[in-house]
């Protein structure tokens, strides 16, 4: 099922804005915490200060500058999201490509395994993992990555299936190219586009999941911040200090929207068609499904 839309490309104002939000946010998250260290305001001042001259976004419940905390939180969430997406990309591509190149029986068995795994209430298992084994960033991104690779495997396998009968692949095989050679020289470059698009769609989902786990108190441990722990702080103080929730929640939503639209645009640019993005299919810390992407 591929629904094509007439693609517009090039630098439109919206594209530029998206680029600024995505790249600017990432740069700020990576370098911001060094330039703007979050310190305790100290003294006997009221702790949570509203936004003002000294603190652009106010201070959090312990009197730390909210903007600095936000940048720290963004960094954590972005890091976990990127690491998990990368992990999912590696596992998913290898597994999917292996299934696609294997014989029909092995292929069927491997993909049936993916089906079974996708039918599990997977986020619950992730919640279980992190709540039982304690808080650690490593566990967090490994657990999230282990969920996210499943749909990517489907994408990779579908891509291999589409390409398998192409004449140039047949030619490569006839000339004596091994499976690994065909995979490396011909398939991976072709799979790049759909996988890149899917990974762009996956990233906001994984980041949302990280925030979700941290919100539940299962993610990173204080004093480290994540988007989710900041939101949890804001929720606890919604009556007295609403700016904490507004800045943390608002920035997360803005960033997710920008990433999602950027993914859509990338899909159009690379001519990858899919009915909907991953974020739409999962939403609010849901589980990724195995939607099809065709190149």
């Amino acid at each position: 099922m591929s629904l094509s839309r007439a693609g517009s490309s090039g630098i439109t104002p919206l594209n530029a804005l998206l680029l600024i939000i995505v790249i600017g946010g990432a740069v700020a998250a990576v370098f911001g915490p060094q330039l703007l260290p979050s310190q305790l305001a100290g003294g006997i001042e009221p702790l949570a200060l509203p936004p003002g001259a000294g603190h652009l976004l106010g201070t959090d419940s312990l009197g730390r500058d909210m903007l600095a905390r936000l940048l720290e939180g963004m960094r954590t969430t972005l890091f976990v999201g990127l690491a998990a997406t990368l992990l999912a990309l590696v596992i998913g591509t290898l597994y999917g490509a292996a299934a696609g190149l294997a014989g029909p029986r092995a292929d069927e068995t491997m993909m049936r395994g993916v089906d079974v795994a996708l039918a599990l209430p997977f986020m619950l298992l992730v919640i279980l993992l992190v709540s039982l084994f304690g808080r650690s960033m490593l566990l967090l991104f490994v657990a999230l990555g282990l969920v996210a690779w499943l749909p990517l495997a489907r994408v990779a396998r579908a891509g291999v299936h589409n390409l398998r009968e192409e004449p140039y692949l047949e030619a490569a095989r006839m000339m004596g190219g091994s499976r690994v050679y065909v995979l490396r020289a011909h398939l991976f470059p072709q799979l790049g586009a759909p996988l890149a698009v899917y990974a762009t769609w996956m990233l906001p989902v994984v980041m949302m999941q990280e925030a979700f786990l941290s919100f539940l108190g299962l993610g990173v441990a204080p004093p480290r911040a994540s988007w989710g722990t900041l939101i949890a702080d804001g929720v606890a103080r919604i009556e007295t200090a609403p700016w904490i929730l507004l800045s943390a929640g608002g920035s997360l939503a803005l960033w997710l929207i920008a990433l999602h639209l950027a993914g859509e645009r990338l899909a159009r640019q690379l001519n990858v068609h899919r009915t909907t993005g991953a974020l739409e299919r999962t939403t609010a810390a849901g589980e990724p499904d195995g939607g099809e992407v065709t190149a």
Partner: protein
Amino acid sequence: MAAATVKLLRRRLLAALPTLFAVITITFIIVRAAPGGPFRDEKAVPEAVRANIEARYGLDEPLAVQYVKFWRNLLTGSLGPSFQHPERSALGVLVGGAVPSLILGVAAALVALLLGLGGGTLAALRPRTSPPVSAVALIALAIPVFVLGPLLIRLFALELGWLPAALWGSPRHLVLPALTLGLPVGGALVRFWRTVLTESLDAPECIAARARGLSDLEVVRLHAAPRSLPLLLNYMAPMVAALVTGSVVVEKIFAVPGMGRYFVDSALARDYPIVIGATLIYAVALLVVHTMADLAHARLDPRLHREHNR
């Protein structure tokens, strides 16, 4: 038709068994491999007393024996006693929690379907409304439930005082949690349904229906929507999965006495029977939805049905 339905059901059931087996086994392993135990973190009880308690629950036996015993219990329809609530059976605790969870889930699904199908249809029929509708939908789906919920509480409960901020008991208590859980899913559904319906409206029979003078809504109702329904059914399973996971946090925020709220707490308290039981119930619910969607799908699209039964 009936025979085919039975065949499909049997096939789904056979496929469900390994899934359920995997769910139970994986959960059992995760739960038991974790450090700590149900009676470790409480007051400093003498070693002998703790050993006594653990023996009472059979926790002193080898894991393999416990695993077999767990299965034996399960096949007789029991999960054993809850560790946190010794006076109640784990199944009793879970069934008590499943009712509010189910009510909340169904209400949220209705919210999502109403908004999603309404907004999506509007955007598909009136292309000029599509950009704003899609934008609103995107915002709705990008705001995490754990931000949306507190904001709704602040607005409708604290500022306006129209609705209760939390707890459970009357239909009024249902409104805010159902909205919180349903809105993001509804936003996703708007965008999905708009794309699918737009595609369907270009189909020859829809153009013909329009040429015969049917109104837009009639075209949708009689031709475009039935044509898109199988795709919508495919969408149901991930939607329900999103509702299930979302309910964990929504029930926590709104203090709904459902299964989701106890899920994290039980995991932290190492209440093994509750954790495994809750995961199992969610897995069964997911499988049931998958199967129902499949059955409806087969009804709507007999081609697919034949293909499946090759």
